[in-house]
């Protein structure tokens, strides 16, 4: 299977370990990723917060470029980019006048025949989960996980087309397939504060603190997620939260693809651990997964 791939700025910067582990896992599962040529930033929250048309145009340029590959599916691992691209796709399909305006702005056609999917939506397809199960060499036995989806993979469902938007299961299914002791909790789709982190770090500390405490309450030893913004917000605030005694302890935050690569015993995944601000190695060693 070949799919067009939009990594987005985070995966080339602060979330390199997400990009690398996505590539490792897809290769092992025979999913060929074709990175779209000369992609631009999706505009993230700053574009849609300040200039509606710009936000659709920035995202649409990437959709048009993706259509130039011969692939019928475009996959986006970053939840924020996914939602921006999906929202632009939705708006263009829904509104012919806007579609004309946008294609003239980007000077490229866009037919709207592309299926835009978050990477976890592809990985959680039954046939792929089956493939994952066959490839597990190091079951993540005894590793207590909670899966955290945040906002932008699932909401708003009118745009994302996600059915179980209050209780998504994509990553939970994958964690079960690799043998983790996956826990359920009711904070799967709560907000981590997203793009407020830089200007209002107090808000980020409060919301990520709630999530970390709830993960602890569910007796999880780590959080599994699929969004670079959630990853940064949950990881970078732990030192300060611990110093202020607002969380009981630090816990590693994993991209779901990192744990899949680990379970499939893809050696290179170990190179990603030093990239983490909360070192996952002591936990992994204690579970015989180091």
């Amino acid at each position, binding site marked *: 299977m070949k799919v067009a791939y939009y990594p987005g700025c985070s995966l080339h910067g602060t979330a390199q370990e997400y990009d690398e582990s996505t590539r490792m896992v897809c290769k092992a599962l025979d999913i060929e990723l074709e990175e779209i040529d000369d992609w631009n930033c999706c505009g993230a929250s700053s574009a849609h917060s300040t200039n509606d048309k710009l936000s659709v145009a920035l995202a649409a340029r990437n959709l048009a470029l993706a259509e130039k590959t011969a692939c019928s599916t475009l996959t986006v691992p970053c939840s924020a980019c996914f939602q921006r691209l999906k929202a632009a796709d939705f708006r263009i399909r829904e509104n012919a006048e806007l579609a004309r305006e946008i294609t003239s702005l980007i000077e490229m056609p866009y037919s709207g025949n592309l299926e835009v999917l978050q990477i976890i939506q592809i990985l959680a397809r039954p046939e792929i989960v089956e493939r994952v199960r066959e490839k597990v060499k190091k079951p993540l036995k005894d590793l207590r996980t909670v899966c955290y989806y945040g906002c932008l993979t699932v909401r*708003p469902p009118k745009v994302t087309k996600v059915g179980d938007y209050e209780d998504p299961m994509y990553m939970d299914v994958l964690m079960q397939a690799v043998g983790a002791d996956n826990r359920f909790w009711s904070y799967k789709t709560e907000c981590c504060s997203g793009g407020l982190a830089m200007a209002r770090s107090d808000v980020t500390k409060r919301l990520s603190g709630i999530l970390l405490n709830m993960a602890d309450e569910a007796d999880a030893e780590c959080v599994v997620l699929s969004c670079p913004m959630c990853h940064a917000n949950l990881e970078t605030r732990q030192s300060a939260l611990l110093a202020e005694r607002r969380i009981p302890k630090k816990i590693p935050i994993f991209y779901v693809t990192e744990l899949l690569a680990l379970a499939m015993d893809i050696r290179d995944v170990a190179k990603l651990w030093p990239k983490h601000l909360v070192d996952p190695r002591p936990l992994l060693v204690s579970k015989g997964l180091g």
Partner: protein
Amino acid sequence: MPTKEITESQLDSQLVKEVEAKSHTKVSSCFQCLKCSSGCPLSYEMDYLPAQVIRMVNLGLRDEVLKSRTIWVCASCETCTTRCPNDIDIAHVMDTLREMALRSGKAEAEQDMRRFHEAFLSAIKTWGRVHELQMIGTYKLKTRKFMEDADIGMEMFKRGKIKLIPEPIKGRKAVKKLFRKT
């Protein structure tokens, strides 16, 4: 919650029409059930709840909504939009109000949020992609908050997560044009 007298002359009947046209959503169908506000993770930081903002748009309290903190602390989590029984896209209304506040020079509250968005977009306008170092630098110059989160920045930098060199795209001109024409 702030309370104050409203006189009829303050009410701007054009506001709801303008917001509905720009956000493509029917703000006037709100029946004040408060579902949007009870699920809002940022309501504790807001001067008006999301439902109050919707009500104020319907009433025509233009300056009050455009100058509110609510529109800037909204994290665009889309919980309100997802749960509204009348299918009102409240998150998009928040976007529309932010844009209107900026374009009319009425954006007053939470200046650092505005500065963050400006810094972020200026990096995209230059390179076509975000260059974190430039974005952080621009933001720090605008806010003069040089030391805030410097330790986190350093930890990221040490791990190679913040690059010194930007990643310019070939289509920089095309992207710049999108900024100019929108």
